[in-house]
């Protein structure tokens, strides 16, 4: 049986009719057409589906849409301000922090929270902080370089 869920997505109130078993990532992609959030492994490992739920990074393939009812969700589409890329997005661009790009939205959503929590992270802290995000191209060197560069912009 479907029920209505309401949440704030990228700053705007959104309502959808979903089954209890609908995952948050499917609500975002299929009901709200926010396809920037990717489904990679679909088993809570790869982190491609990472979004912010109440301002914290979570894997949207392992949250039910009904669990997000009444809460605030931010996706990769919601982090650029007035058309200006977020500094983390710009750093990934400038440092070529992507190859195929599939993991990139999740990497960026996790990396922004990482840098908020640890303002001047060491490479070791960056790698630990990205433990929940897998790059199947194995392009980690430039991802770490991008996060380091973005953290220096913030400092």
């Amino acid at each position, binding site marked *: 049986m479907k029920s209505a869920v309401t949440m704030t997505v990228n700053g705007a109130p959104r309502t959808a009719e979903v089954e209890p*078993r609908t995952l948050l990532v499917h609500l975002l992609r299929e009901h709200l057409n926010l396809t920037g959030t990717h489904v990679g492994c679909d088993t809570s490992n790869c982190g491609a589906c990472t979004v912010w739920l109440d301002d914290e990074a979570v894997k949207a393939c392992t949250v039910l849409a*009904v669990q997000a009812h009444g809460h605030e969700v931010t996706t990769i589409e919601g982090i650029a301000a007035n058309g200006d890329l977020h500094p983390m997005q710009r750093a990934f661009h400038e440092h070529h922090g992507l190859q195929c790009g599939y993991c990139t939205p999740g990497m960026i959503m996790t990396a922004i929270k990482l840098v908020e929590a640890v303002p001047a992270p060491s490479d070791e802290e960056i790698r630990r902080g990205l*433990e929940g995000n897998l790059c199947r191209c194995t392009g980690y060197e430039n991802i770490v370089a991008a996060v380091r560069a973005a953290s220096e912009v913030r400092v």
Partner: protein
Amino acid sequence: MIPREFAYERPESVADAAGLLRSHGDGARVLAGGHSLLPMMKLRLAAPETLVDIGGISSLRGITDAGSYFEIGALTRHADLAGSDLLGLACPVLASAAAGIGDPQVRNRGTIGGSLAQADPHGDLPAVLVALDGEVTAEGPDGTRTIPARDLFRGFLTTSLAADEILTAVRVPKAPHSTYVKFNRRAQDWAIAGVAAVVDGDSARIALTGVGAAPVRAEAAERAFWGGNAAEAAARAADGLDPPSDAAGSADYRRHLARVLTLRALEEAIGG
């Protein structure tokens, strides 16, 4: 992957949640952070008819300093445990174990109560609770009871909680000389083996993860430790163990890990 269809309930109190569990019988499961149950449902390893989501019961969240012990609400997340300065100083075995569970996103959702009630043999927190000699509160339609750690874990994914009982709180003593050490080969993976060590003067309590269907007390190692001999204790850490062999490691490898990690954990706990 999509779970089987289920009915969804979101009670606002523990009493309502327990009532729902009783009325729905064996077909109902409690949903906390969902980071064990939802993956199992997606893989169709679990197919509850009804999910009772206790995530909205905010009274179940938080860490309280109660003097000689901590009272921790069941919905307190791994990230809260790992980030707690209180626990970091006075119960580092719990803070260090929580800091190594899964990955940052998992720690933002997974809860201490969910992890203990799931009782995964490779989960980190059951061994921590056993080493600390902690206890949990279980609330059901017929009342509230306390279950000591030694009586909670019954085997593979099995606890002594009744089907209509909810684990609502965890109590652990302060243990400033304690730590948790685990070993795995891949980022974010489950422990192949792990050791929770709690040192109190001349004595130690040691519990192992990943070497049996439930946490195992390393009793021979505890006896050998008497007086503070970490090396003697570590040499006995695998005595009597019958660990599983699987793709992550053979039984012999797990015995080896039990000894090596026990030494590391005891030395760190003593130095802490």
